[in-house]
């Protein structure tokens, strides 16, 4: 393997983040203990903005002629528009989460720089995961992302009740994550054993030819699926999620529920697209090597159905806002699994459509959900997070602006037109309906949207229909309201004029 500048170009978006993470770490160690940490946040955000610019440059560079992808490091990492679209998503999420965290931490503890470092590292792990075309890089990406997020989950350390819950959440998340890692490694080992390669496209070609290896190959793919199901918190492998989400500091919860989930989905789309091969690809019949392709697909369908049902029905009973949003994010994972299934099943144009739909959905979901978590974080005070639904009574009377932003976020999550979430669902379900076998999942998804409206509207009812309870004092910081405004505007823009993002998503095909 020769080392060349071109290879570095393929990981340029990650390089920027790594450099920025080191810089933030360094600057913090020279910052006095009592000095404000705000400049570290601006450093992290600045790095993300620069990185967004890099991503945009590479996006337009990749459009020209034959160069639609940039492979590096012996084909283990690939930079194409699919990866760049994902990078953009992670960067936006990181910026918003950093802003939320700055306000949140100055209220609850004191501001800390290490959190921004971890956020940047987690984002770079996500980038690696979605750029990976080799199982080893997939593993590296997942681990880099997860280790940073474990630490983030446990980052509330100072104020009594929150810190205990945060530590508990980090422990649970870590243990379940370690378990997942083992499963993932086992799957990788089996696939390597049967095909003699860790390159996904090669595995796709070879598992069909390996004599006697069909059972092993099947087991490998199933283990891989289970690992991803853990990461996206698909039911019944979601048990860690509500606890981890509840315990983590709210901005981090938002980051976990959006960026981490998006990374796992976008990684899964890439991995399973490569494994199943596309029409016209030499690996067209790739998964024929599995013992039961139909069974695997049926399993994915069942996973999607159970996730939609479990997430949405469990959310109905939650009184705690963070748990409610956690279960709702499980429900959204269910819808996205329908999209993943449409990607896996589809060929050619259908696959491209499903993929674009998943990307669009993740983008709108990420911004909407971060907006909602932002309002949740904004309401919390030191030692009193105000997470109970009763704490939200009459918010519209006291703070009409924030309540309206929350209303838009919740309605968009529930899929009410003409907001972004509705368009995302429409696009996703359209892709699924192109394949008649998935019709039942679409109908189930639509019914679950009604269920989801019930619990989203419970929050709306508390905010708008009930008389104000305890007074909420003046609010520190203006970054959280800024995030709420960004989310609200994005929700409206994506709902009324989704064309631009749709075209971007459609242009970002995984190959």
């Amino acid at each position, binding site marked *: 393997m020769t080392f060349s500048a071109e290879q570095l170009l393929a990981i340029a978006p990650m390089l920027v983040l790594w450099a920025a993470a080191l810089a933030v770490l360094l600057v913090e160690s020279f910052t006095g203990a009592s000095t404000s940490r705000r400049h570290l946040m601006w450093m992290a955000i600045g790095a993300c903005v620069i990185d967004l610019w890099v991503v945009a440059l590479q996006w337009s560079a990749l459009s020209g002629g034959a160069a639609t992808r940039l492979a590096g490091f012996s084909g283990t990492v690939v930079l194409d528009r699919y990866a760049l679209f994902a990078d953009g998503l992670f960067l936006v999420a990181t910026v918003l989460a950093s802003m939320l965290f700055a306000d949140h931490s100055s209220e609850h503890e004191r501001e800390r720089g290490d959190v921004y470092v971890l956020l940047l590292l987690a984002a770079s792990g996500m980038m690696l995961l979605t750029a990976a075309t080799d199982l080893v890089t997939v593993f590296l990406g997942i681990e880099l992302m997860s280790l940073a997020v474990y630490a983030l989950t446990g980052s509330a350390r100072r104020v009594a009740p929150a810190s205990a819950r945060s530590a508990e959440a980090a422990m649970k998340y870590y243990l379940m994550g370690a378990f997942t890692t083992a499963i993932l490694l086992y799957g990788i080992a089996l696939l390597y054993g049967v095909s003699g390669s860790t390159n996904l496209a090669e595995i796709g070609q070879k598992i069909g030819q390996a004599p006697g290896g069909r059972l092993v190959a099947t087991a490998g793919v199933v283990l891989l699926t289970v690992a991803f199901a853990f990461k996206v918190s698909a039911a019944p492998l979601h048990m860690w999620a509500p606890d981890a989400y509840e315990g983590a500091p709210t901005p981090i919860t938002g980051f976990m529920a959006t960026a981490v989930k998006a990374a796992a989905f976008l990684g899964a789309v890439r991995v399973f697209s490569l494994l199943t091969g596309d029409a016209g690809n030499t690996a067209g019949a790739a998964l024929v090597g599995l013992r039961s392709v139909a069974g695997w697909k049926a399993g994915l369908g069942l996973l999607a159905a159970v996730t939609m049902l479990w997430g949405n029905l469990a959310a109905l009973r939650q009184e705690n806002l963070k748990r409610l949003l956690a279960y709702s994010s499980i429900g959204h994972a269910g819808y996205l699994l329908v999209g993943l299934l449409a990607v896996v099943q589809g060929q050619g144009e259908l696959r491209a459509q499903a993929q674009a739909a998943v990307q669009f959905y993740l983008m709108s979901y990420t911004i909407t959900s971060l907006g909602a978590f932002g309002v949740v974080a904004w309401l919390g005070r030191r030692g009193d997070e105000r997470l109970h639904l009763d704490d939200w009574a009459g918010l519209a009377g006291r703070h009409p602006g924030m309540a309206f932003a929350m209303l838009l976020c919740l309605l968009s999550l529930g899929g009410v*037109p003409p907001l972004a979430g509705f368009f995302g669902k429409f696009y996703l379900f*359209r892709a699924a*309906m192109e394949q008649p076998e998935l*019709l039942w999942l679409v109908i189930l998804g*639509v019914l679950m949207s009604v269920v989801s409206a019930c619990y989203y509207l419970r929050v709306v009812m508390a905010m708008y229909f009930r008389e104000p309870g305890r007074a909420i004092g003046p609010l520190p910081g203006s970054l959280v309201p800024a995030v709420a405004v960004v989310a609200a505007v994005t929700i409206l823009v994506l709902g009324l004029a989704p064309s631009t993002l749709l075209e971007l998503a*459609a242009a970002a095909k995984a190959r």
Partner: protein
Amino acid sequence: MDALLPVVVLLPLLGAGCVLLVPNQEGVVVRGVGLAAALLTFLVSLGLLGVFDPAAAGFQAEFNRPWVESLGIRFHLGIDGLTLWLVLLTTFLTPVALLAATRAITKKPKEFVASMLILETGMLGAFVALDLFAFYVFWELMLIPMYLIIGIWGGERRVYASIKFVLYTMVGSLLMLVAIFYLYTEHHRLTGSWSFDYTALSTVVLSASAQRWCFAAFALAFAIKVPLWPLHTWLPDAHVEAPTPGSVILAGILLKLGIYGFLRFAFPLFPLATLEMTPWLGLLAVIGIVYGALVAYAQDDAKKLIAYSSVSHLGVAMLGIVAWNARALAGAVFMLVAHGLTTGGLFLGIGALYDRRHTRRIDEFGGLWKAMPVFGALFLIITMGSIGLPGLVGFIGELLVLSGSFGAYELNRATGGALPSLSAHPKVLAAIATTTVVLSAVYMLTLFQRLLFGPNSNPKNQALKDLSPRELVVFAPVIAVILWLGIFPGPVMDRITPTVEHYLTDMQQRIVDLRNVDTESHIRGERSASQGRGPRAALELGGPARALRTGQGRPSAQLVDGSPSRAVVPEAQLVAGVPSARLAVEGVR
């Protein structure tokens, strides 16, 4: 002038934006801006009368621009004789309701006015959208403002009523969304192009079973909205708890969208399922007529009484649209307008009493005429209009529907048996439906008597003030239109009739085309007659065929009023060519 419709639809939304930008909760400013926006919308919408060609039957004042090009979503708006008057009714009632809100709504006037205006955009858009995606967006846009109006400014049980309203509506509308998607993907599969356009999608002829499912999904959404018995239970709760302006809009306009949806979407898009299902819809409508009237009679709560009377009246309108003749259909469309005016007026009246006494219980009142003679006289006119007294707006629509539904059987025979009649015994259903004339008089006159006649014994009522000038301004336009349309319904009917006739010939053509339906979906007209004429398939649609009646296939080429119908089936084809198709049509009788 093709930008007239989008201006009418979006003006209220713009107004809502202006209202929200008013920096304080100053009631006068907020209400003034809101009322100005609503009045301006009304004035602009009157321009539609100018551009509307009464003789033309197709869509007019069309506006068609791409919205999301890659998905085939267009911002396509248009009106015809069905919707012209519904649009005007909407723009007319909204300022009236806003004016009525001055006293009924005291908390958060800014949010209230904005909700009402957003609601108006939703209603107008749903009436005029000719793109199914845009229609769905507007349809759902109505949901949230109405939810907030009931939930924030409603009565004691407002939270329960609002969530019930939302859930009922959402279950129906989301299943309709799946059906829209199905139609959309089938259209793409058959033609290779993405489109949500009404005219494009209505060329898709789905397979028999797909039609049944899709029709069921659409019908559920619209039947909940109408509301058709037994899906009406959300309505009394929503009405009772909603504030007066909300009730006016809900009963006056929102319910009309159900009937409109059946006419515009459910029937033409799925003709075969329509053929099979309309007799049942007719049966439900008749049950609703009688049930609504009887339950209304038993109410102690004035608003609940009027809510149930809506169930009964809209049953009549529903009967009119499934009777399948021009008279009943035109009557039903007229009735929608009439019911909007009279029920809106009734709710305004009850609202005026509620503002004074803060109770809706009928027992609390009595003998009010002595204290409030002006109110009594105006309320009497509205009550009589609701009952359908000749010379008032309610009469002509009801008369046309009821006489039309009696005639359904003969007219259907005259059209070659292509349209379904009400059921095996249409006259029985029509006869039962006619009891509405008596029943509505029974419950409405009882209400009037209990409120206004007798001794004014309740001491709280003796000092009640008569209508204030503001309230007179609210009532006057409603009363004026009730009288005017009762005496001169001609201009309205003239603009409804061509569309209705065109609608029926078009429906008939669609149903005749069903001889081409087999188990495969296809695009209308693309399949030659020889292709899809399998006797097996056609028999399958028909269900158990009854005995052929003689004279069914006569090419008596007249639909109504002597206008020759281009859709009538030539006799030879019916008798010799496709006996099975006739069996199919006959079988559902």
